């Protein structure tokens, strides 16, 4: 019989304790970031999809060694390059990232020995069209160069 009442009392106290916890939270400021209106600053190391690094003149550092292409576990990088007349180095002619299969592992960036690839800070990656995720990185680099008025970074 004593168990009956201690149960009742202990139970009621535990319930009131819980209610006190939630009540204390009530007047506090919400911690939510109202996403489309507010944005957070991305961390320096944030891994978005990869992008090419341009040199002084804005042309890509890439020398078309295909290391990244081979390192990629999901084969989402395809690149072509050609050797122009009278030049020793190969020049990148296209660099296509198929982001639909990319798992953002970063193997490509790590495998690059020529400082030609980096992670972008792009996190707004939503679209209703599949084609939006076939990203032409060379074009992207050109746009970045245009936006900043020449090569920076």
């Amino acid at each position, binding site marked *: 019989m004593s168990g009956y009442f201690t149960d009742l009392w*202990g*139970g*009621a106290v*535990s*319930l009131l*304790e*819980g209610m*006190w*916890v*939630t009540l204390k*939270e009530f007047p506090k400021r919400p*911690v939510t970031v109202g996403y489309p209106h507010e944005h957070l600053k991305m*961390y320096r*190391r*944030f*891994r978005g999809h990869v992008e090419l690094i341009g040199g002084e003149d804005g042309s890509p550092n890439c020398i078309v060694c295909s290391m990244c292409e081979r*390192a*990629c*576990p999901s084969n989402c990088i395809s690149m072509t390059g050609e050797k122009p007349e009278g030049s020793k180095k190969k020049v990148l002619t296209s660099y296509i990232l198929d982001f639909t299969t990319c*798992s*953002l*592992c*970063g*193997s490509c960036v*790590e495998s690059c020995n020529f400082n030609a690839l980096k*992670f972008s800070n792009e996190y707004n990656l939503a679209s209703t069209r599949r084609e939006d995720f076939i990203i032409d990185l060379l074009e992207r680099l050109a746009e970045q160069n245009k936006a900043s008025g020449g090569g920076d970074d």
Partner: protein
Amino acid sequence: MNQMDLIELQPDETFVLNVGPQHPATHGVLRVKMTMDGEYIYDAETVLGYIHRMHEKMAENRTYAQYMPNMGRLDYLSAMAFNHGYALVVERACGIEVPERAEYIRVLTVELNRISSHLVWLGAFVLDLGGFTPLMYCFDDREYILDLLESITGSRLTYCYFRFGGLYNDIDEPFIEGTRRFVKRMYKELKMYAKLVTGNIILMKRLRGHGIIDQNMCQRYGATGPVARGSGINYDVRRNEPYSVYPELDFDIPVDDGCDSYARYLVRMEEMVQSLRIIEQILAKLPEGPINPAKKPKIIKPPPGDYYAAVETARGNFGIRLVSDGGKNAYRLKLRSPTYSNMHLFDEACRGMLIADALAFMGSLDLVIPEMDR
């Protein structure tokens, strides 16, 4: 002995209830075919494989380094520990030495990840029981961990932070400062959870004495992790089969011999405290030095043979068996995931339970479906 064993029911006295593949309590695509007698479960059969991706075959088609990101996709909640297990087995096979600093940072991130995993479990578990608010608090706290880990690994869930023999990159001062602040905050938050959830009479009534798993059942099914520890089995790979720098750290393995859902609940809550202790110690004695080994084979090619490594993830013993034929790809890679064995005993244990208790019991097993289906 529950009452169901005593009654022999005719098929026309029962009905089949399909819990899942899309059901709020299964946390993913798991299906349990329950034969019910009213609200009592007469028999249950778990159906898996809805997100089976054949990770083991992928291992045979990729190089060792390329396979690393797959590990995070197995268990998205404690990806760090799974990466650790894979790194361990390959390091063991190739004889790669890991520098001390890297080992400490590994344990630090794994333990942070363990807390974040347990926080998701706590929230989801109480959500299973019908309490919504703790989920939000848990995700708020987890956010701190994700931010911390994002600041050093660059990603929030599938970190892929470990490399064979070392790490992807070193931790920095803001991260250490942030972790210190987080540990302080987390102790306070755990006290709050104790008041809001642990002591709650409704929760206790629902968990105490329900979902009994005895030691024999654990042995027969190979249950590990908090499920086994909640049944009074003092088994934790971190202590039983020490790896990395765990032997140098001072922490306890919480064991509770209640055998019920509440015991498993208490074990996990205490594990968060122990993880915080580990983190504090590591922050105090983090050695300086390189994070990658001086000599490391350029192409990973383990000598032919069998290798095994096990780690303690948030859900239990994760083992990897690697069969190498000396090539660039694994000849065979077996992933022994903890939830697979833990969930297996559900069919037997839930017989005779009410459906509400059975789903609470399922929540106390801490399921992560991708890890089960692999």
